[in-house]
């Protein structure tokens, strides 16, 4: 059996610079100017054009998966809630430990899926013209962690409601090859005892809503052992590892607990302008394989560890080029 190397990204792209300017003018700079799901024709048209740009970039560089780009996600991973009816967006709060901010989504009523992300994906599917499409969503635990509950009243119920909400969003998706669930909160605010099992169940629920391969990508470090062990209980196809932020603990987890048949390796830094050499990414891929000895993966996804919205646009393009070339190099070496 031969390992397939798939170049991809977790989405969350930067807007092209022209779109940054145009949307600044069209939308404004204050918190009530951000996306709430009912933007007007001019704004919609601008996003459509920007989406074409980033899909062109992915096709030009030869990435093996095409993402929509999540350019409308003003609130980053909190976006799916920011456009939901049962949610009020409050003040600007810090996004993890970064110099980024998002609007605090406060859930005030029963959550209902919106179809917002499905319609983005449909537009992307048309542009992808048969190339493999990849959906991107916040993992249920991270979305739960980013949100504030003023309705469900119980952490377990709230997490389950978020999982059901995301499940409903996935139900409406057009056909897609892979689904990336981004779960930085599993690293940044690890679930406590009991909660770790519930987080895994929530992920399982969302993953079960699609026939596509599901990759769960935690980042900004490695998972605590127990959290990792619980994550492996979920019915998912691959776990992602942020080897940029933490190499040793990620390797330890894989060696100690094993992993899924497929893996995603976050080997390019999504938050630094230093562009990795494709050869270096390929070498690091081989090095990880070597550390694991007997394990032979079916599919290895080569990706940035995080979204790339925090990079200047030109550097984001360069990162995608490096990843696409690295996957090609790895295929050649493996063959």
């Amino acid at each position: 059996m031969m390992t397939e190397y798939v170049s991809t990204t977790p989405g969350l792209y930067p807007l092209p610079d022209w779109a940054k300017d145009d949307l600044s003018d069209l939308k404004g700079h204050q918190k009530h100017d951000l996306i709430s799901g009912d933007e007007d024709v001019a704004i919609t048209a601008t996003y459509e054009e920007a989406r074409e740009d980033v899909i062109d970039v992915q096709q030009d560089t030869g990435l093996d998966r095409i993402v929509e780009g999540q350019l409308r996600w003003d609130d980053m991973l909190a976006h799916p809630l920011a456009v939901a009816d049962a949610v009020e967006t409050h003040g600007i709060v810090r996004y993890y430990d970064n110099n980024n901010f998002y609007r605090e989504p406060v859930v005030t009523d029963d959550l209902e899926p919106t179809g917002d992300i499905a319609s983005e994906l449909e537009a992307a599917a048309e542009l992808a013209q048969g190339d493999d499409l990849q959906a991107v969503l916040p993992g249920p635990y991270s979305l739960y962690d980013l949100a504030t509950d003023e309705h469900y009243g119980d952490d377990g119920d709230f997490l389950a409601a978020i999982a059901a909400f995301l499940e409903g969003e996935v139900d409406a998706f057009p056909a897609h090859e892979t689904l990336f669930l981004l779960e930085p909160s599993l690293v940044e605010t690890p679930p406590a005892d009991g909660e770790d099992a519930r987080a895994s169940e929530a992920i399982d629920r969302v993953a079960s809503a699609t026939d596509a391969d599901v990759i769960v990508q935690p980042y900004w470090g490695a998972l605590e052992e127990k959290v990792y062990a619980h994550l492996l209980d979920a019915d998912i196809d691959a776990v992602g590892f942020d080897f940029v932020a933490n190499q040793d603990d990620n390797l330890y987890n894989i060696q100690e607990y094993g992993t899924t048949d497929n893996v995603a390796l976050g080997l390019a830094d999504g938050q630094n302008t230093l562009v990795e050499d494709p050869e270096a990414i390929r070498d690091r891929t081989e090095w990880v394989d070597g550390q694991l000895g007997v394990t032979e993966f079916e599919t290895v996804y080569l990706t940035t560890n995080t979204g790339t919205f925090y990079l200047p646009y030109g550097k984001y393009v360069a990162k995608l080029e490096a990843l696409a070339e690295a996957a090609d190099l790895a295929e050649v070496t493996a063959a």
Partner: protein
Amino acid sequence: MSTNENKEQFRQPDHEHDHFLLTTVVGSYPKPKWLNRAKDLYEDEDSDFDADNWQEAKDDAARLITAEHERAGLDVVVDGEMRRNEMVEFFAHRIEGYEFNGPVKVWGHNYFDKPSVVSEVEYDESWLVDEYEFTADASDRPVKVPITGPYTLANWSFNEAYEDDDALTVELADLVNEEIEKLVDAGARYIQIDEPALATTPDDHAIVGEALEHIVADIPEEVRIGLHVCYGDYSRIYPEILEFPVDEFDLELANGDYDQLDVFKDPEFSKDLALGVCDAHVAEVESVEQIEANIKKGLEVVPPEQLVISPDCGVKLLPRDVAYGKMANMVQAARNVEANLDAGEIDVERGVPTPADD
């Protein structure tokens, strides 16, 4: 020399009161609209508005805002940072080793040109000596020089060249030290290091302290060094910051209505406190009475000799008339409290924390 003594040099000859609550600003001030228009013209390739015109526009603006600070009655003035675009970009353009690759998102459609450190950082042209000399020449008042600190310069840049941000921070600290030496040679006696990044990553106070040791190395004691930190959870950096080699901490406290004041009461605040008494992000001028009440909050933490009066933060996002109103009321309030202190009408006996059983 104690911190109080190097403050005394900023007392105006005609100061009316025995007590002296030094009034100053954090630094930035709203730019006149015509300055922004001049910038657009300068950047417009079709316009004949050239570099000399642009320089003259900035000079005019610096003179104007310095005079506005004097008119408000401030004891120590700044030019309102009229020549600076942004607090990291401005310095990164002047330091060898930085490059710019385009804007990145902070939130929504707010971006900044986050620079990348791509090679060893080196001191090249002077950063602020011209700015200082111009302002000092334009004013009879003492001039404070705000400088973005090395920790913030490192953390708000992409680091491509150094092993980690701490290594970059220390290198940058040596460059800041070099710049301060030049400023001191030019006559500057009041330097404020701005480290807003510290409040967002409070676990890093140790590296900020190490950087400050580099910054103040061989700087004479009569030069007053302040540290400005804003928008964060101060309990995570206090009392550790008392070890920093600075004379004064400039803190944003009005914005949170002094809910963090108690943090600084125990252990005793051993440095000077430059207390934020006006909110920099509310476009409404606080009354003199309100500001007097805020100043008295500071007297719960330090005695009058250790108290300095300032807005929370740079006021550049406010309408200019509001910014001016805040400065003028702030000075009036400080003078009123000084008079009350002279008259013995304010009880400055600070609440002594109950000693712990140990």
